[in-house]
């Protein structure tokens, strides 16, 4: 400790400062710094900071008062901004009325509903489920916005009181709107601080997170208190969204990305300290404004100034103290016999998948709804795209599903894999280089894992997210990394065993085969000592450590495995999407979607990967139906299923945290002739359900012995010595 500050903080700050100075010297634009230009830049920075401070305030308030880190905070803002536009611009309501309806009526209602339906049940869920569910809410809200307000019309949210009215500030004019934003942001932060510290309801909100039972013993109504917290949180999100929208334009993705900057600001205050979060937001705002004004990173790093927030988030998280070894959580929804997939079952499963893929894509199956025939290029395009995403998704199974390590950066690893492949295989597309991709991505995974291994789950999620964002802003756009962007050149076709996979169906089948190999590898891995060890550190790190398992090293290994799988998958993903725009293809939002899909399917089961194939199949069906005409209803249905399905299914994780495949497997496995164990389990469950109701208390007929036992159990006297036979029979 130096002056009471942790070493890690000091080291990280020094490194960051040093890096910033070196960077500044290297990239100095050379424009003259006058007091006037400096002031204007500072004013822009403070204004940006105020905008982000509003979002950060909402995040911190929700986290301190509910204990849930809400990834959907930004999406609530997006939805509210669109609703405000609808009411104010489209329907012509007065801005104050529209503002009131959205912020004071709609937002609290949304918050209370979220709490009552979902959040309340998340309190005892594992962190993975908590995070997945808030991410799912984010994705769902964004999809709803996309569906209601189609992207084809350009929309603008006007500034309050117009952009041209305001105070004259000498060199420039300060519009009322910006002044209001600044004042409101500060006022909100101050009043929230007051609410949380100086009022009883605010105190109760924090108390409920500390100890819900004790709060009830004091006489506070825990459910009412937490609903209030969510209502408040979503009001703050709504206000933030509406006030930011005029600046950024009404684009869902852009507006939603603001939340990442807010994450960085909130991390400044260790996610709980409101004043620090506001200061963090202001700092990031100033940094952004000044780097934009004075530094020039050149065309190669044209997005680098946007990476200020993710980089700060990375630094803050790395400077955090090491987490103690956590004790495990209760695992819900366990089966009495958790069963390993047998090696030959894995083979059969993979074989069936490959056959199905061949049959579908070749048009061998006739469903009578449409003209049978091979898939056309449109179907194959969408199938290839989804198949490549499914491959990336599989890389999350060991990492999230088994070891419980959250990772929002699968696409960053995938992108790195594509980059390595491009560098080594060049234009030839020699497929054997894919093996080298696997080898080189492993160290990158390990590198990310080293700081991650010492962090708690939530910070881990934030760190991987910041890593993904930094990669897609700094690394991927560099022309040396992805030289094919904008040149019209194609990502090279893969060539393996003397075959060039240049037709879409061949490429699709190649991916299906790689998919089967991945799944089978996972089946074997799950059965191995490594699979067991990963499950063990997920259940209890402390216990694993006391058995001699090196926890940090184990996490590093699982990251390396996952990164290498993602890297290989990335080569296919780049081949599929490379001719469009690679940078977009490695974007964070798509990463979120992959993580959600896998979580919804059941992230702990290797066979869950098969589920991901349904998405390309549905897409293929949809396109085919569209061609056939007259089945609008079905097309819409399939469209809704592919858009909202994953998000809705993740919401289902609240009740069924192990995902869809797990439940489907329970229903399906008894059909398999060799699964006697599954049939026995179903029979045992049914027997339990058939336990008789006590009913008419033996009036119309004498009790049977089972009923006597049921009554005893109901009355709680089963532990007494009950003469099980003869008791009921004596009566009859």
């Amino acid at each position, binding site marked *: 400790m130096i002056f009471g500050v942790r070493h890690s903080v000091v080291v990280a700050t020094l490194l960051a400062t040093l890096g910033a100075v070196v960077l500044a010297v290297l990239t100095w634009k050379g424009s003259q710094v006058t007091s006037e230009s400096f002031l204007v830049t500072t004013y822009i920075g403070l204004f940006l900071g105020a905008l982000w401070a509003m979002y950060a305030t909402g995040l911190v308030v929700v986290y301190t008062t509910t204990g849930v880190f809400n990834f959907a905070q930004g999406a609530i803002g997006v939805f509210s901004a669109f609703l405000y536009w609808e009411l104010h611009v489209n329907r012509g309501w007065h801005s104050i009325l529209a503002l009131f309806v959205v912020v004071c009526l709609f937002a609290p209602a949304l918050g209370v509903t979220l709490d009552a339906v979902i959040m309340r049940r998340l309190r005892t869920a594992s962190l993975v489920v908590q995070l997945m569910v808030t991410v799912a809410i984010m994705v769902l809200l964004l999809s709803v916005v996309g569906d209601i307000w189609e992207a084809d019309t350009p929309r603008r949210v006007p500034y309050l009181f117009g952009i041209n009215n305001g105070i004259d500030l000498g060199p420039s004019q300060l519009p009322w709107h910006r002044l209001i934003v600044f004042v409101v942001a500060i006022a909100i932060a101050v009043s929230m601080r007051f609410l949380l510290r100086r009022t009883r309801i605010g105190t109760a909100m924090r108390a409920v997170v500390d100890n819900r039972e004790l709060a009830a013993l004091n006489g506070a109504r825990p459910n009412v208190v937490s609903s209030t917290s969510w209502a408040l949180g979503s009001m703050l999100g709504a206000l933030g969204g509406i006030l930011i929208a005029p600046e950024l334009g009404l684009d869902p993705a852009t507006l939603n990305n603001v939340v990442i900057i807010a994450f960085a600001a909130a991390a400044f205050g260790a996610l709980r300290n409101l004043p620090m979060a506001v200061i963090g937001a202001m700092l990031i705002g100033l940094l952004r404004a000044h780097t934009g004004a004075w530094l020039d990173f050149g065309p190669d790093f044209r997005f680098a100034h946007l990476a200020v927030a993710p980089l700060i988030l990375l630094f803050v998280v790395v400077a955090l103290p090491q987490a103690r070894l956590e004790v495990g959580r209760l695992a819900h929804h366990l089966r009495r016999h958790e069963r390993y997939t047998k090696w030959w079952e894995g083979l059969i499963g993979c074989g069936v998948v490959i056959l199905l893929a061949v049959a579908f894509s070749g048009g061998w199956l006739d469903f009578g709804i449409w003209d049978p025939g091979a898939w056309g290029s449109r179907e194959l395009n969408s199938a290839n795209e989804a198949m490549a995403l499914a491959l990336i998704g599989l890389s999350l199974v060991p990492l999230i599903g088994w070891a419980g390590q959250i990772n929002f950066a699968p696409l960053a690893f995938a992108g790195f894999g594509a980059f390595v492949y491009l560098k080594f295989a060049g234009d030839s597309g020699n497929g054997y280089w894919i093996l080298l991709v696997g080898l080189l991505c492993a160290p990158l995974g390990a590198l990310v894992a080293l700081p991650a291994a010492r962090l708690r789950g939530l910070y881990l999620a934030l760190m991987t997210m910041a890593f993904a964002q930094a990669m897609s802003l700094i690394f991927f756009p560099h022309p040396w990394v992805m030289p094919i962007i904008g040149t019209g050149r194609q990502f090279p076709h893969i060539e393996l065993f003397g075959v060039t996979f240049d037709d879409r169906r061949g490429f699709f089948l190649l991916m299906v085969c790689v998919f089967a190999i991945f799944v089978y590898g996972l089946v074997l891995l799950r059965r191995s000592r490594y699979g067991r060890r990963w499950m*063990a550190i997920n259940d209890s790190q402390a216990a694993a450590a006391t058995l001699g398992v090196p926890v940090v090293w184990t996490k590093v290994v699982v990251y390396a495995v996952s990164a290498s799988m993602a890297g290989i998958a990335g080569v296919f993903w780049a081949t599929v999407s490379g001719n469009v725009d690679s940078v977009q293809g490695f974007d964070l939002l798509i990463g979120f979607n992959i993580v959600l899909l896998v979580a919804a399917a059941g992230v702990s089961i290797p066979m869950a990967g098969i589920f991901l194939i349904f998405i390309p199949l549905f897409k293929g069906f949809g396109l085919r139906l569209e061609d056939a005409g007259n089945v609008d209803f079905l097309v819409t249905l399939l469209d809704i299923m592919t858009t909202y399905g994953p998000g809705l299914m993740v919401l289902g994780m609240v009740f069924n945290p192990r995902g869809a495949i797990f439940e489907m497997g329970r229903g399906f496995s008894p059909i398999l002739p060799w699964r006697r164990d599954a049939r026995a389990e179903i029979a045992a469950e049914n027997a339990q359900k058939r336990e008789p109701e006590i009913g008419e208390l033996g009036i119309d007929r004498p009790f049977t012995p089972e009923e006597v036992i049921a009554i005893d159990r109901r009355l709680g006297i089963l532990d007494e010595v009950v003469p099980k036979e003869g008791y009921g029979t004596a009566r009859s």
Partner: protein
Amino acid sequence: MALLEAEQVVMRFGGVVALDNASVDIDIGEVTGLIGPNGAGKTTLFNVVTGLLPPTSGRVKFDGVDITRATVAKRSQMGIARTFQKLEAFNTLSAFDNVRVAVEKNHRAKWKHRRVGDVAHEMLGKVGLDEVADVTVGTLPTGSARLVELARALACRPRVLLLDEPSSGLNEDETSSIGELLLGLVADEDNELAVLLVEHDMSFVMGVCARIHVLDFGKIIAVGTPIEVQGDSAVRAAYLGSDEFRGAYVELDE
């Protein structure tokens, strides 16, 4: 020389002193008891000894070597194993796999000439869990899950075994068979084993322990044989009240 020594261990959490110069030593071939009222700091001492908590001050020595700064995994490899008061079994794994994780980790060093599965089955057999080997531990009753933890600890072939309330959740028969198992393990000279037992079931403690340490708000207030400890006035004060009240029990001393 004692196999494991905790010397003058102090552990502070904020303003709370959980351990206040506590010293404990345990010897090979004995079960040593550690008793004390609720919140006396027994589990904290276990956490310090196994490395889950770094002590504010004080030292932990194993076989004469200072291990105060060794990692948890390193201590495990040296031969310190434990169970937990609040269950820390691997809930999503079967009982067999719980033990297997431990055997696999220690296979090269300690079970070289035997197959992993055989060792795991033997350990489960020792605690009487052969029949539920395939059952997911999270679905087992608490008492059985505790036994899984014990089997897992034994699979590390420990030289020091720290048991945190192994009998809670077990019935009397099961408790006494655990007692016999422990006595058998320490009596076997090949094992060179020392056991430290935290327990609330006093008849169990008095039955198996050769020596008992009594901890009371972080301080060791008595060390001795079960008979000595039962007769110790400080111990009675810790459990029942302070000295003035002892008059009421004088007649029970005989």
